[in-house]
């Protein structure tokens, strides 16, 4: 009888320990582990370096505030960040994300940078159902694979093209540009360039009274000769010249564009334009180019200014968009954990899906995700001005100056 009483007491204790929620006796994690494989060396090392610094800055701030509040444990838990160098290699990136999940037992994953790497390693996060957020892989195709655990803090390239075309339409309405406009369009032969061209073509098709695409050409990356392309641009007799190119090709193409003395009322290389390397290489030839981007250090919001000042003070280098979106990526993940109130991966994923973060540093100040996991915010548009200056020209609420359209003819 006595034995039976002791046994039932022990049984109750076991039930109490393992089933009753919210009891302090449940095993508490010492830390929340975030993992990321970043391109610290190799072709994407510049961008990867920015991302690493931004993650570290965000994590330091979170830990300085005591960690992330997890309701399940009734207290703040510090965060640990594990990063590896994927050497800008897709295969290595996949292996390292496998390691982060299987060996390091991360709670959540943060993304790296660049479409090829992110396309490759997101498969791992989805396979193991680990919540994953990135701020460096915009290509919409990544998020059209019906994955549930993958989220992205930067809008698609197609959206970039829409923003550009909406802005051009606005210039038509203001009387700065005529209707219809003849557009010469080209883009690198990658998913990035393809989406850019698709976006421009879709907008042109929807408004034939405004836009007429008279040339549409893909081109191979690492151009050895831009002449053939530019001869086509010249022959198309377009009013506006829109292209999507990576930095090296943008520099090569626009040098040749200038040498051939081409002129268009609007010139854009999509997200490219304001980079210091390109402006140094092109000099005055880069003046008045308009570009679209996910963030800019001059965005007139408190969140953007705060980040810019913190980042530049910490690292003594200008805050570009790469660290800005990466910093916010880490903060969004921390908020998702806090919203979920648990380290349960499915619940964190659900919190990300329902995310509605305000006063963020992103354009528009709001972080939310479409059903495919990608944000759908506006881009900020910039225009290069003489003397290496840049003005923000779109959307209206972030604009710091009126655009100069048509571009002055030299």
């Amino acid at each position, binding site marked *: 009888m006595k034995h039976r009483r002791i046994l039932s007491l022990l049984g109750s204790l076991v039930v109490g320990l393992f089933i009753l929620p919210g009891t302090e006796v449940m095993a508490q994690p010492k830390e929340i582990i975030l993992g990321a494989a970043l391109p610290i060396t190799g072709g994407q090392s510049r961008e990867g370096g920015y991302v690493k610094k931004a993650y570290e800055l965000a994590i330091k701030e979170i830990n300085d505030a005591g960690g992330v509040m997890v309701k399940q444990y009734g207290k703040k838990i510090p965060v640990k960040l594990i990063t590896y160098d994927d050497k800008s290699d897709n295969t290595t990136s996949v292996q390292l994300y496998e390691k982060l999940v299987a060996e390091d037992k991360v709670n959540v994953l943060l993304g790296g940078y660049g479409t090829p790497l992110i396309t490759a390693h997101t498969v791992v996060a989805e396979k193991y159902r680990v919540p994953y957020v990135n701020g460096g892989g915009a290509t919409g195709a990544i998020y059209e694979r019906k994955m549930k655990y993958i989220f992205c803090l930067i809008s698609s390239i197609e959206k970039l093209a829409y923003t550009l075309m909406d802005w051009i339409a606005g210039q038509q309405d203001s009387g700065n540009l005529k209707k219809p406009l003849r557009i010469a369009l080209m883009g690198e032969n990658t998913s990035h360039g393809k989406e850019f061209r698709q976006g421009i073509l879709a907008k042109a098709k929807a408004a034939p009274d405004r836009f007429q695409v008279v040339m549409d050409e893909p081109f191979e990356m690492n151009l050895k000769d831009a002449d053939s392309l530019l001869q086509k641009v010249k022959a198309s007799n377009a009013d506006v010249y829109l292209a999507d190119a990576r*930095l090296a090709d943008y520099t090569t193409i626009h040098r040749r564009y200038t040498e051939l003395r081409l002129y268009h009322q609007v010139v854009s290389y999509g997200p490219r334009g304001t980079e210091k390397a390109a402006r140094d290489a092109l000099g005055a030839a880069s003046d008045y180019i308009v570009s679209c981007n996910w963030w800019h250090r001059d965005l007139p919001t408190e969140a953007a200014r705060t980040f810019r000042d913190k980042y530049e003070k910490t690292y003594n280098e200008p805050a570009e968009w790469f660290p800005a979106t990466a910093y916010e990526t880490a903060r969004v993940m921390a908020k998702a954990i806090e919203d979920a109130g648990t380290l349960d991966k499915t619940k964190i994923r659900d919190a990300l899906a329902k995310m509605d973060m305000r006063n963020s540093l992103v354009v528009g100040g709001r972080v939310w995700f479409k059903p495919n996991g990608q944000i759908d915010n506006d881009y900020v548009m910039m225009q290069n001005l003489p003397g290496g200056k840049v003005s923000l020209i779109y959307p209206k609420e972030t604009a710091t100056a009126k655009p100069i359209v048509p571009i002055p003819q030299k």
Partner: protein
Amino acid sequence: MTIDIPALLVSAILLAGLYATMSYGLALIYGVMKIVNLAHAGVMMWGAYAAFILIVNAGLNPFLAPILIVPAFFFLGMFMQRYIVRRVMYAPPISSLLLLFGIWLIMQNIAYLGFTGDTRAITTTFTLMTFQVFGIAISINRLVVFGVGILALLVMRQFMGRTYTGKAIRATAQDGDASKLVGINTDRVMEIAFGLGIALASLAGSLMALIFAFDPDFGRSHLLKGFCIVVLGGLESMVGVALGSLVLAIAEALSILWIMPALQDFVSFALLVIVLIVMPGGMMGLLAKLKKT
């Protein structure tokens, strides 16, 4: 849409100069050693960075920079041949291919460590400067690169035809064993030929850096084009390389009249396949055959 064909042809001819400059070294090394120098791309890339250091950091005149770069890379090439490449000279071809591929990767990674993956470009006072001839805008940069390409061809022709070393290189290229029998130090000749090949690759890189933006991956796509040119021109002939460059540049330029510019590389590789099937000796081989008949 009316394409300006004369402008396209002028641009193709100028591009041919660039193609030739980047392919001479490849042809020379293959001709003498029967080695495909996969490290060629790495040397071009290092040549570009060397030009960047001398022109941007040290403030040297852009056209004086190659005068320092070429000899330095010549000795680097000799060193590479003597202490690294020579060890696999008589091994199966795959050994030298892998070795030189490995050297390329090492060069690339050293560049990533030293210069990061940032895109760089050299801007000089004459960058973007052009002049008009019959309404065609001609870039001074490209014209100079073309001129240096022609000059390199003439100098190499004179060197190969008039000097003892040049003749020894040609003799070794034709028959290494026979050259040894007549007293030519073929090891030394190969060292010099490899040095010259590397020097020419660095010259190409330093000139290309005046036109293109570059990063440590620079040279990869140029290497493939270089292969097409040396096969097209004839694997061992400098004049063949110049001719091959011209044919390829014109074919690529005019191809946009019929196909989209993104398929320009298709033109190069289609030509490569056709040449390998129809005239394996390249254009020079074909010319030699025609002369005989």
